[in-house]
């Protein structure tokens, strides 16, 4: 049992549920940023604060990307786009949280059934990682704005990251950095696309884009 890790896991669950229930875009971005910072600390915590160089470097990279660069990019996009700062959900906030609880239960069940190659460091890690991935997917599916979809994508990546940390004690740094690069590029591209969509149509509502196909 690792108390620090469990605390982080519970923090993750709470932040995910908050994201599902929040209406302000700016706050959402900040919450995802905090999530990123905390996750950046996770590998250090799991190793009991033993400060190995590559771990520190790795944590620093994660924190600076997830905690600083992505939120900064997104906030800037939000500011430049002068969009309404509402999330505009397809599924209401209350319902979202309720569905989030259902997903959490399913994830707990999955976590208990999933055969793992190595024992996880905390029994909470696998279900929570799943839950984070699912919340991200849920955000993508249930929100209208392109920005929220980028956020959902980031949350999903957080989940994948947690999963990776949980399973492999010695981080396969290359793999993780690969995913990170992937996400970085994705956020970048989406930022540009959003900008262009906005310039072209005066909004970034993906729901209205579907009218284009007719």
């Amino acid at each position, binding site marked *: 049992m690792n108390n620090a890790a469990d605390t982080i896991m519970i923090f993750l669950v709470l932040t995910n549920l908050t994201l599902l229930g929040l209406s302000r875009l700016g706050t959402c971005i900040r919450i995802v940023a905090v999530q990123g910072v905390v996750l950046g600390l996770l590998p250090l915590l799991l190793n009991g604060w033993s400060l190995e160089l590559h771990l520190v470097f790795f944590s620093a990279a994660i924190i600076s990307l997830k905690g600083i660069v992505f939120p900064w990019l997104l906030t800037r996009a939000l500011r430049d786009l002068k969009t309404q700062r509402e999330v505009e959900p397809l599924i209401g906030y209350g319902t979202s949280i309720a569905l989030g609880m259902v997903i959490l239960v399913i994830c707990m069940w999955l976590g208990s059934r999933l055969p793992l190659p190595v024992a996880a460091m905390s029994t909470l890690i696998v279900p929570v990682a799943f839950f984070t991935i699912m919340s991200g*997917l849920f955000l993508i*599916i*249930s929100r*209208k704005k392109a920005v929220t979809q980028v956020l959902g994508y980031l949350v999903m990546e957080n989940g994948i990251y947690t999963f990776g940390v949980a399973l492999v004690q010695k981080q396969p740094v290359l793999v993780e950095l690969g995913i990170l690069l992937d996400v970085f590029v994705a956020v970048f591209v989406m930022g540009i696309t959003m900008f262009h969509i906005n310039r072209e149509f005066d909004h970034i509502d*993906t*729901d209205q*884009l*579907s009218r284009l196909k007719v």
Partner: protein
Amino acid sequence: MSLFLWGLVIIFVGGLASLINGRRAGLASFFGAAGAVAGSITAVIPAFKVFLHGVTESFRLNWNIPFGSFFVQIDAISAVFLIPIFGLSAIAAVYGAEYLLAYREKKNLGAPWFFYNLLLIGMALVVVARNGLLFLVAWEIMSLSSFFLVTFEYERQTVRQAGLIYLIAMHIGTAFLVVFFILLGHHAGSLDFDKISGVPSSLANVLFMLAIVGFGTKAGFMPLHVWLPYAHPAAPSHVSAVMSGVMIKTGIYGLVRALTILGFPPAWWCWVLILIGAVSGVLGVLFALAQHDLKRLLAYHSVENIGIITIGLGVGLLGINMNSPILAVLGFAGGLFHVINHAVFKGLLFLGAGAVLHSCKTGHIDLLGGIIKRMPWTAFTFLIGSIAICGLPPLNGFVSEFLIYLGVFKNGMGGGLEAVIPALIVIGALALIGGLALACFTKAFGVIFLGHPRSDYAQQAHEVGPGMKFSMVTLAALCLLLGIFSPLVIKSAENVILEITLLTFPDVQAELASASTVLWNFVFVSLILFGIIGVFTVLRKLLLSGRCVRQTVTWDCGYAQPGPKMQYTATSFAQPLTDLFKLFLRTRKDISHPKGVFPVQSAFHTDTSDISEKYMYEPAYKWISLLLSKLRWFQHGRLQIYVLYIALTLGILLIWKMM
């Protein structure tokens, strides 16, 4: 073998260099064509070695894909197909280097060269692959790269439609092949061809039908041929030459390879092949007769020639089934020699058609005329190709058809009823095909090259440049050489025949030797004929020298002012024959007759649409699209819903796995 693989590498590098230099048209053409030519020459050397000595070369590399391995092998059967693939592609590349330059202002030439070289690699790999998965991958490389070549002029609506039809047809065919290989692999436990043996007869029957449909779509068997009349006219001419000359032959190759794997053939396989061949042959040439567009006409002739090849294969298979060496040897020899011959003369004809298209900007036969005076080289080589495709001695087309005739005839003379019936069907079909082909090419050559120009298009005709001329002259020379030296070629075909049939070496050798003796007689007689023609030509020159030669109209028929529009058109030339076969052709005629004493307007228009397209595919696709439109609600165009679909699928799979 390594020489072969290096050849492919050279071809690929050439294509890549051309892609990089796409904006500079001259460089792109140089790299593409040079890569194709140099690589082909390198890679064809091992193929020739295998063909002559019959020693199989192979190369195997493990592959990290389940059931896949990079297992390639050149045996005599592969060699027979590799030689025309590399030969024709190299010659067509020289032609294409000049042909494509006409598009230098409008288009990036890197892409067509890249895909051309990729197509060449795909075809070569298909023929040497000895693993089901590798075969399918190569098959797809071939289909997709040729799709991009067909849609080269994508800004034209007809070209886009042709590309779509081609893509769909190819993938329907591939679907059958995937099932074919899965069943085969399931039986043998491996997809390597050398590990497959002893296929039980019930499974073999199913596999045979799958192969007929899968490979037949590529080859263009009659009800499956619909893509040919669209794709060939749409593609650039050197690509049509390669597609029609060698790419569709990979279908024939696949069929031959499947037959060697599937074991002893029951009689009905042979009959299926002979009937498909006869139907494709006769209907192919009939539809060719009714066409107005030169390249479309040639495309239907590809169907016809595939029919002849399939008849040859069917006869050869019947020989195995009836244990008659003469049928087996001459059937397969005729069919496979026709594969090479058709590559040469059909390549030549498509290049000729391309030259006409290049200089006149139209392929509509009724708008041309009289261009023999403006394009003598093209006209002369086209004439040689026409004679060859009609199967007239002493050119190569004659030899392969003659071998099939000889086989069924000799077998039919000696045997009972079961030997006479195939002889009657095959000889009847081949004779009909030959006669109609002659009529068709008399029409095509006569209307396009003879007479007077029928329009401004024909007026602007001019001879093509040295690269295109070189390619056409080379192929025309090959038509002649393959005809005259056919006895030698036939004699060296023993390795191939041995590979396909289960006959003994002396049997094969004896049959081939007797066939080549007969051929020598033909060659001898035709050389005498050539000699006589030569003597008369010289005599005519001598007699006319020093005299005044004038040009005048042939005969006026009392018309005061005969104009070029009064010449026979392609439609009117073919009308007696098309009327005779109107049961199959179902030509639609729109006529508004001239009325009154001083008629003002009158028009005549004919349109022959493909029967299988009109009465088979159109109704079928209408039903399919009706059914599928019921699934429309599934597709909203909303990103969120699509992600939901993916998430749901993954979730259900995960939960199902956890249960």
